[in-house]
């Protein structure tokens, strides 16, 4: 065992003000086990009475070395780890990773697979927003919204279970397409969801949007200007609530998003309330996208027929020697990617989720890095929370919508 080195006073004294050193302000530890830090986030708060003078986030409690582990697995096998990063958005993580692999090796994806990817990614966005809405409303003491949100989320998770057999860790998107085609009940299940969901969003809005207690807790709290938001690398609804129209689905369309007609909700106030409004509107836009994708869902294959990268269907293995060889090669050695690096970004429910993937020509990634939205969104917390009350800080953490698995990886 190594000796445990404690962090010395000198090492962190530049983080707090001189008043703290004289004992005028109080240093208070919040988390890592705290119900409203949304996971294992620790905050060191410097408080003047109940006012936040400074807030120092401490992350890493959920660091699992995913990037290092992926370097020792083949491209197909590394994918299962991506599910476990942002556990509110496993399909979105899969999508980013497979898009990066596809760009690296130059693989085409059939149109049906692309449309199904869009439908599932948007369902995932809604389910993530529902968890955000429920928990952040709970943070500002609106209890009932939580129960309604989880009712609808259940419906979405049932659809994921229907297509992949798993409610959360799906690994359903694969390089070159999908694991398998969606089952026959899929379209019906999505239609049922599309029918009920708009009314359910109206219900949430009836509980919150004009609720004076909710307005008191959210209006003018934790605001940030467009320029600062951009400089601090904020993305997603948090950036769009400050008035910057940056959505990867428009900025650099992937998976056929350019074919769909949707709006990017914008607000300029940049406070907790504006972020709430933007996310509510985003859910409605996601429903629009799903509806369009479902309407023109093309028939055809869901996997690329390029056998050098995509395993052949089971039925071929019994009759074709070639197929058997490909099957064997792909599941033992894996496929090799050309030497080089790519960066692919998608719009996750929280913002820009990017995957930097470098290959040295072998069957395993040489380096994988995920640029995760929560990482940048949490970083700005000290700036957002300065001068507000501890109770407001809780509302602000909820509003930037962080997932600690996404930050620590």
């Amino acid at each position, binding site marked *: 065992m190594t000796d445990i*080195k404690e962090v010395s006073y000198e090492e962190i004294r530049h983080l707090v003000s001189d008043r703290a050193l004289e004992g005028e302000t109080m240093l208070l530890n919040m988390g890592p086990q705290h119900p409203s830090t949304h996971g294992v986030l620790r905050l060191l708060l410097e408080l003047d009475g109940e006012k936040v003078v400074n807030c120092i986030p401490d992350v890493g409690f959920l*660091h699992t070395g995913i990037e290092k582990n992926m370097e020792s697995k083949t491209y197909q096998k590394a994918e299962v780890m991506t599910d476990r990063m942002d556990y509110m958005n496993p399909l979105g993580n899969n999508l980013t990773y497979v898009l990066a692999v596809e760009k690296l090796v130059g693989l085409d994806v059939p149109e049906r697979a692309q449309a199904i990817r869009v439908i599932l990614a948007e369902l995932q966005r809604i389910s993530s927003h529902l968890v955000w809405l429920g928990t952040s409303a709970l943070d500002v003491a609106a209890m009932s919204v939580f129960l309604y949100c989880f009712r609808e989320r259940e419906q979405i998770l049932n659809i994921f279970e229907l297509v992949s057999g798993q409610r959360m860790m799906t690994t359903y998107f694969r390089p070159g397409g999908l694991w398998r085609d969606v089952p026959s009940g899929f379209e019906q299940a999505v239609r049922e969801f599309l029918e009920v969901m708009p009314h359910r969003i109206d219900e949430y809005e009836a509980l919150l949007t004009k609720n004076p207690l909710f307005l008191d807790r959210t209006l003018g709290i934790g605001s940030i200007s467009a320029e600062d938001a951009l*400089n601090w690398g904020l993305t997603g609804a948090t950036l769009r609530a400050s008035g910057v129209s940056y959505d990867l689905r428009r900025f650099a369309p992937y998976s056929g998003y350019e074919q769909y007609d949707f709006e990017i909700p914008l607000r300029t106030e940049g406070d907790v309330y504006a972020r709430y409004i933007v996310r509510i509107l985003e859910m409605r836009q996601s429903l629009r996208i799903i509806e369009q994708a479902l309407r023109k869902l093309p028939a055809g294959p869901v996997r690329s027929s390029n056998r050098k990268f995509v395993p052949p269907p089971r039925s071929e293995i019994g009759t074709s020697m070639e197929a058997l060889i490909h099957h064997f090669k792909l599941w033992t050695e894996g496929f090799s990617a050309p030497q080089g*690096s790519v*960066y692919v970004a998608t719009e996750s429910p929280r913002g820009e989720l990017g995957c930097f993937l470098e290959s040295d020509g072998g069957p395993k990634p040489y380096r994988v890095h995920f*640029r995760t939205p929560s990482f940048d969104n949490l970083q700005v917390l000290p700036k957002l929370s300065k001068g507000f009350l501890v109770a407001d800080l809780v509302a602000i953490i909820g509003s930037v919508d962080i997932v600690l698995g996404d930050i620590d990886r």
Partner: protein
Amino acid sequence: MMSEKLSQHITSLVEKFEGTTAEFAGETTVIIPAERIESAARFIHDYLGFKFLSCLTAVDYYPQDEPRFHLFYRFNSIPEALSLNVRVPVSGINPSISTLEKVYSNANWHEREVYDLFGIKFEGHSDLRRLVMPADWQGHPLRKDYPLGYEEPQYTFNYEEISVRKPKGSRE
């Protein structure tokens, strides 16, 4: 295909900062020498209009030493819908490079992460502490000479033998 605007930006960047370019998968990456990165970032931010630092990470090319690391930066220009990739080679002996924190505020945590996991020092950084690993951790896990961290299973017949070569203390 690369837009004309982007290729103009890349040309001006290459000329001004003695850069070179590399192509892969339809994208161009500008390679800039390490000592010019801070002024290059200011130029990219102020004159080329890339106001958004989207990604900052590193790659380790161990056992190669000169350069051992590459830092990878990606800048976005939102009004022009352009992305710019920049790579900076960093030596493996006392790896260090100047910080971009003063130009792009969000570089703060990204650089702390790179420092933590690769051991590259960022000169002028306001708060260069470990980010995700514990403060008393030894070594930098994402380096290629850092083992993945499995433990050899010990049985009664080879317990002593493995105990001898088991890593103790420093993991570097």
